[in-house]
């Protein structure tokens, strides 16, 4: 079936793109110099790559879709997957921010390019 092949390929491409971004996040996590830059890799990489993988699943649901009368549960599954996407979009940046904030409160020293590049240390010298 031509429709089945095309949709399988498209969803595979989405999942593959997600995996590439996961690889980038893992590389960043290993290579970046300090806690804060590593959080960049973990926080951003995870958001888009899990979005792409879940979207790939959602598209794959359509691979044997024939008519809305017989296949409406498939549409519900797609809406559930989209709900997961929304939760990831909201929670992932929030948790990144919470971890960065906790790191600063816990006196983890950020590695900045020069002393004058840290406005937070300038405003709160007692830390």
């Amino acid at each position: 079936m031509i429709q089945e092949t095309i949709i399988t390929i498209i969803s595979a491409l989405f999942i593959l793109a997600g995996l590439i971004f996961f690889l980038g996040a893992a590389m960043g996590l290993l290579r970046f110099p300090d806690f804060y830059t590593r959080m960049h890799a973990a926080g951003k990489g995870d958001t888009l790559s899990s979005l792409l993988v879940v979207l790939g699943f959602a598209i794959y649901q359509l691979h044997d879709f024939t008519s809305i009368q017989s296949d409406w549960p498939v549409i519900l599954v797609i809406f559930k997957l989209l709900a997961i996407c929304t939760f990831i979009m909201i929670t992932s940046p929030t948790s990144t921010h919470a971890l960065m904030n906790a790191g600063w409160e816990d006196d983890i020293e950020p590695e900045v390019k020069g002393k004058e590049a840290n406005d937070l240390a300038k405003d709160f010298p007692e830390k």
Partner: protein
Amino acid sequence: MDDSMTKNGRNGYRVLVFSLLMIAWVIFSGLIDGFHLSLGLISCGIVTWMSSDLLFENRWMPLRKRIRQGFLLGFYFLWLIWQVILSNIHLLKLAFGPRSALSPQIIKFESNLESDFEKFLLANSITLTPGTVTMKIIGQTFYIHAISDIAADGLDGEMERRIAKIFAR
């Protein structure tokens, strides 16, 4: 504003909350028969009756305006997804590029946004755009960790203007 109008506004919000809950119920249960739908009606009704004030902060705002905001927020999210893609490409380049491309710095950013939701939206958007993460919010001051010089230069007020436009009174 006379009394009957405010009463109408509050009921409008109740109907809105109830229909959002009911849509979520139908999607997540997936069973469309009399028994499960009536269970949904009862539980959504109880939740709306007890705690419908939790969802929207300012209930004096006309519903039409609220719906317009919802649409604008949808377009904003589309723009944000595009920013997320750009940000991941930027990160991919940095992760596989030389160490010297990094120049981490923490910058201060003053915003004019006032309500909690607007600040939450700005903080999350900063985290999702290329190379920047919100570290700390004190009042209206945002402390932002930028991973490279390009990311730090990109922090102008554009995002703030977009958010302010959505919630313009």
